[in-house]
Each structure stands twice: as C-alpha cells, then as structure tokens.
C-alpha cells in the first residue's frame, strides 16, 4: 500500500496542504491519486478555505483500527446558509473515502464524531460544502503505530 516513504510523505505535507488549499486538483505525486480524485470530485476543482473546520484527531494513534475523529464547522446553520455535506478522506487507506456526512438546517450545528480505521500513518482531510457555495478544508497527519486494515 505504500507509494512513498514516510520520510518523503512528511516532507511533502506542506506542499500537499498548499495544493489542496489552492484547489489544485491535478494529479500530484504527493497524494495517492485516488484520494486526490475523491477530493476533486467533491470540490469540483474549486478552492477550499482553511480555518473554518475544527478537526479533532490524535497526532499519534496507537491502534489504527479505531481512531476517534471529530469536527465542528464554524458556519451558520440557517435555511439560507448551512453546511450541506462533509467528506472525510484518508489518503493512504486501501480506499480513500472514509465517510460522507449530510447536514440540514435542523442539525443546528455542523459537527459530528465517529471512529475510523487508518491503514498506516497518513494525512486525513475533511472537506465541507455549504448551501451558499463555500468550501472548507482541514487536514491532519495521524501517525499510526498499528495499522487498521488487517494488513
């Protein structure tokens, strides 16, 4: 499953983050292509703004079989302006999609938590879409001591 060495991966993170932030969805060596494709499909190639999603993920996960992920998005939840969809992508899992959350104005708050599997040390991205056409992104690298995909 490893496309690049961990050292390379670490070195590439700032660039990768910049790539996603700048909305460049071209295939890059930094991210496994599938994850980039998933993100591109979600954003439609548009720029996602950082800073609005509070992402809670451990820096180091001892067990990749169950890693708690929580997010809270700073955006109104009114019928006119609300967060509609949130995508979670893990770039080095066998399949990059982790979950898709759909919110409504009745949600009151665009926040959720779950437990995810991570096959190894990798970058987890959370992307959000709003009814008024905004895109937000947050990313975090999680070091995984024991992988969670039976490998």
């Amino acid at each position: 499953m490893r496309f690049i060495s961990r050292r390379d991966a670490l070195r590439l993170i700032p660039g990768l983050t910049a790539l996603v932030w700048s909305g460049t969805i071209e295939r890059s060596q930094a991210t496994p292509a599938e994850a980039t494709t998933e993100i591109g499909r979600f954003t439609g190639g548009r720029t996602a703004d950082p800073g609005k999603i509070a992402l809670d993920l451990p820096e180091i996960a001892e067990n990749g079989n169950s890693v708690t992920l929580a997010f809270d998005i700073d955006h109104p939840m009114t019928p006119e302006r609300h967060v509609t969809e949130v995508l979670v992508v893990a770039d080095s899992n066998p399949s990059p999609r982790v979950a898709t959350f759909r919110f409504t104005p009745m949600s009151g708050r665009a926040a959720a938590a779950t437990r995810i599997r991570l096959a190894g040390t990798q970058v987890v991205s959370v992307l959000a879409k709003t009814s008024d056409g905004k895109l937000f992104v947050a990313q975090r690298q999680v070091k995984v001591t024991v992988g969670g995909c039976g490998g």
Partner: protein
Amino acid sequence: MAEKPRIRLPKQAGKGEVVEIKTLIAHVMESGQRKDPSGKIVPRKIIKRFACAFNGKPVFECELEPAIAANPYLQFSVKVEESGVFAFTWTDDDGAVITAEEKITVA
C-alpha cells in the same frame, strides 16, 4: 445484529436548543480487504448508511465506508423546536435495515 443499538440523548430540551445525540450499533464492519487464514478475502459486510429523522423530516445522514471502525459510533447534533420522535435507521450492505426511535420533550 440482534443487539439493540445504543442511543444517548437528553429526554428534555428547551425550544431551539441544540442537543447532542450519540449512537452505537454492534456490527463487524467487515471491510472486504481482509484475508482469512486460508488466504481468501473475507467478503465485505458493512453498515453503509445511517440516517436520523425528527418527526418525519430528515435531519442528518451519513454514508459509511469500510474505513469506519467496527461497531460504528456516530455523534451529531439536532436543533429541536418541538417535542417529537427521532427515528434512526442503519442500512446494511445486505439490505437489512435496523431501526430505533427515541422521544424528546421540548418545553
């Protein structure tokens, strides 16, 4: 599968209050990526969708992938304006649907 899902939410809330709901359901969430000792791939079997509705109106939905840990846990919020019933549904890969309901009183 036979086990009842666990749901935690307040029994009462103020009008317009945002309440937090926590759900947990027992399920293997077999990813379809694992091999058994004989080297055969264990077929995928996961809960692929979770939905929550309040008084019949959809509030929150989640599409789950094999990267969700076994016994899927989900926490989310709902703004309640009136008393009513929450309906929760979990949909399995094999089409089975598990449902649960919880009441809330809004003062």
